[in-house]
Every structure is written in C-alpha cells, then in structure tokens.
C-alpha cells in the first residue's frame, strides 16, 4: 500500500489526575502534562510496523487542534512517521466536524488505510473513527487487536465484549486501535533531532470549508460521586472474613 494516514490527538496525559474547575466550567488543563492520546500512539505504532514489514510506503500523521499540537506531531514523526498535517483551530471541534475535516484530508491524500485510536481519553467519545468511515462510505474495523493484510483486504481481529470477532474489510478502510494491538516503541534522542527536519504542514480548519454540525453543548462539569472509604485488612484471613460479611463468599 502507498499510504497510511494516522490520526493523533493531543490530550491530557493518562497519568494526570484530572480535576474539575471550581466553577464547573470545564476541567483544569492549565499547566498539566499533555501527550499523544495513548490509543492513537498504538495506531501509529501499528502503521510503523506495517511499513517496516514492507507493506506500506509512507505514513502521514494528521491532528486537529491548536498550534501546540505540533509537539505531539513531532513526537509521532520521531517515532517514525514520514510527515504530518496539523488542521489548525483554536477551539476543538465536535466529533462530526473532526470526522468531516479528516475526510477532507483523506480526499487530498488518498490513503489506502486510516488508523486512529479507538477513543481519545479526554472526552471518551469513541466516535471519530466510525464517523469518518461512514462519511467516506468505506469499511470500519473498530477495537482492532490484530491485522493481517492480504491483497486488497485486511483481516481484523476485534476485541469485543464477548471475546474476539474476526472481520475482513476491503481497502481503503478505517481501523481503530485497541490496547492489545501492540506496545508502542520509545522515542530515541537522535530520532527527535531527525524529526525536526520532517515536513509538518499547517492547514487552517476554516480552509477545509466543512459543513456546520449540530453541536451538543457541554453545560456543567462536576466531579464524580465519591465512593465511601473502604477498610484495610491485615491478611488473607481478614480478606476472606470481609468478603463473607458482604455475602460475596
């Protein structure tokens, strides 16, 4: 295959304990560590492995967000992607608008495969991949844990609640990466230096002239209901006793 497009979203790092702002207007993102959405990192790792096996020629990254998302794209380039596109917008668009913007990039780039994470760990919407596939009129294979290419199709093992499903989709297609697809590589320092020279194009979202979407408004943010403080037991006998008290043994 000629080209794989990988979607990367800049999100609050998964190790950060997110706090809701006191006035309920959002969550605190000032000064917190930001990273590539972990599932997108897995998507990129899979694309790199496909290329390293000689089954793809070029890996193009795409992100939607502010100028600061260049950091995550540079990290992706350091991991091994060939070039990157930032669809620039000050306000993060809704998922349908993201899918429409990605479709515009897909129409410009004509990739045979798009891989994105199964969900972003900030809004947890899990919508962009299937929405892009729908708008593109192409197959989707969500929650992928294994890919096997053969001719113009790919056999995808999907992690579903009841176990594993296997489906086959014709290319071009959209795949969303689940946790067990692979373990992403670490970036090496020389690669970070090399990545600075790789092309990173910036395209204003407004230039893509996508249609307006009916937006779902987010009105009030609040912390989740707290669980009651539990008990500590000293040993296995204490644990067994506590489980028996609750009728669980």
């Amino acid at each position, binding site marked *: 295959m000629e080209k794989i497009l990988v979607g990367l979203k800049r999100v609050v790092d*998964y*190790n*950060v*304990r*997110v706090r809701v702002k006191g006035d309920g207007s959002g*969550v605190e993102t000032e000064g917190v560590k930001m990273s590539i959405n972990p599932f997108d990192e897995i998507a990129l790792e899979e694309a790199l492995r496909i290329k390293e096996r000689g089954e793809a020629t070029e890996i193009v990254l795409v992100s939607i967000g502010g100028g600061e998302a260049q950091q995550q794209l540079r990290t992706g380039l350091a991991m091994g992607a060939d070039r990157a596109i930032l669809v620039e917008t000050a306000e993060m668009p*809704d*998922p*349908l608008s993201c899918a429409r913007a990605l479709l515009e990039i897909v129409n410009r780039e004509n990739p045979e495969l798009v891989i994105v994470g199964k*969900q972003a760990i900030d809004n*947890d*919407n*899990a*919508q962009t991949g*299937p*929405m*892009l*596939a*729908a708008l593109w009129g*192409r*197959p*989707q294979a*969500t*929650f992928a844990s294994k890919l096997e290419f053969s001719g113009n199709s790919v*056999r995808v*093992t999907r*992690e*579903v*609640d*009841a*176990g*594993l*499903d*296997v*489906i086959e*989709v*014709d290319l071009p297609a959209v795949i969303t990466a689940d*946790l067990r697809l692979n373990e992403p590589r670490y970036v090496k320092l020389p690669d970070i230096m090399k990545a600075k020279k790789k092309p990173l194009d910036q395209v204003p979202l407004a230039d893509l002239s996508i249609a307006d*979407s*009916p937006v*779902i*408004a987010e*009105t*009030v*943010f*609040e*912390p*989740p209901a707290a*669980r009651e403080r*539990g*008990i*500590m*037991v000293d*040993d*296995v006998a*204490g*644990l*067994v006793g506590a*489980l028996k008290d609750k009728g669980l*043994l």
Partner: protein
Amino acid sequence: MAKVLLIAEHDGESLNPSTAKCVACAADIAAADIDVAVFAESAASIAAEAASLESVSRVICSENAAYRGGLAAVLAPQIVALAGDYDYVLGPSTTFGKDLVPRVAALLGVNQISDIMSVEGERTFKRPIYAGNAVVTVEAPAGVPLVATIRTASYRPVGTGNSAPVETLEMSADVPDHTRFIASETGKSDRPDLQSAARVVAGGRGQTGRIIAPDLYIAIGISGAIQHLTGIKDAGTIVAINKDEEAPIFEVADIGLVGDLFNVVPELTDAVD
C-alpha cells in the same frame, strides 16, 4: 410523545442484557414511546425476548443473512432508513453499540452523545469524561434526531412480563459487500464477557478504556492508573491486593490488603477452595 428507536444487541440467538438496561434509560425520557429494532439472521426468539421487556411499545424485526455478526457497515444504513420516524436513536455503549451508533449518527449528519449515565431532561443528559474523573451535563440541539449510546453500568435492566407487538420489516437499504464477517471467537475464547460478568479478577496492564460493573472486582498487583480506577468505580465491591501501600487502587477499594501477590494469591485460593 418522544419516539425512541432502540437498537437491540444480541449474539444471533438471545438478547444481550444491555438491551434491557437501555430500555430502563429510554424509559426515563418523558413520554417515551420505545420501539426496539432487532436485526438478525433469525429474529423470532430474540424479538420475543425484546417484546417481553417492560416499557417496550413495539418490536421491529428484520431478518437477513447479512446481519450475521452485527456489522456496523451493514446495519447502519438500515437504521438510517428507519430513523426518519423517530426523535431518538439509541444503542448500548458496549463494543456493539460503540461500533455501530457513531456510524448511524454520521450518516444522519448529527453528533452523538456517548455513554449516557442519566437522563436530566428531554434533551439533557449526564455523561462521564476523562474515564469518569469528571461528569458533564450535555444538551442536544432541537430539531435533529438525538443519537446516543447508553452506559449500561449506570442502569438496572427493566423487568419482563410485557408482550409488545412484533412487526417484521423488509430491508430497505443496500447491503455493502466491502465488509465481511468471518468468525466469532467468543465461544472458543476463555476470556469472559467483562460487561456481564458478576465477578472479575484482574491483573496486569490496567488501562483498557472499558467500564465494567461486576458485583465483585479483585485487583491483584494493579497499582491503579487513573484510567483503571475510574473504569471499575461502578463495581459492587472492589478488593485491592498490592504490595505498595501507597498504590492509588486503595483509594477506591472497599477492602484493601497490603501484600505480595505471589504470597497472597496462593493463600487466597487455598482459603476459598
């Protein structure tokens, strides 16, 4: 009246418990008139189960060999063909619904509300974000179909005893051939369905992006990354076994035991046997 189309989840033979939980959510919408749609190779017994659920007005079923495996690319156009008659199109926030419902929403040209955890008004809902570290109230715009998935861990299934009418529908949209179901390894896998398991014992990598709500959850040697903690908060009882007494998992545990899993687990299995 608020007309609701709920997409049933099933394994080809019987209804998944997620459907009865989604009916409970849909019934919280004021004046909801709930139709359940069953797309299956052979729908009769699944439709009968759906018709027995309280609060269901009608079951619509459509039979076709192409529905095997519940492929989103096959089902979404069929649902879109039905959606014109409805104010709400709902599905479970299981892997089935998460795969299918966004495809429906995009074809309808609307955004989707993911993981409804409570109904606050006709078009106002609460949903978790940041793996449940925050809850956001969302308002869907009027005048367009409201498409959403329902977080099944937030609802108890409705009862049975109803006998809603069952209607059969001819398929109206084309079936794409670019997506083919090959096999389900669910029966052969020794991995249980975590969404419906009553007891879950977990170890190893903790971040899955999944939310589960078993009666008993035992976390062994999992320190508790933020993502993990929030994915299990709906469990009835959480037990944490970890050698690090500072491990975040103890913050959410109902019962905590500080100890090395290689000593504790053999002792525990002996004690339980």
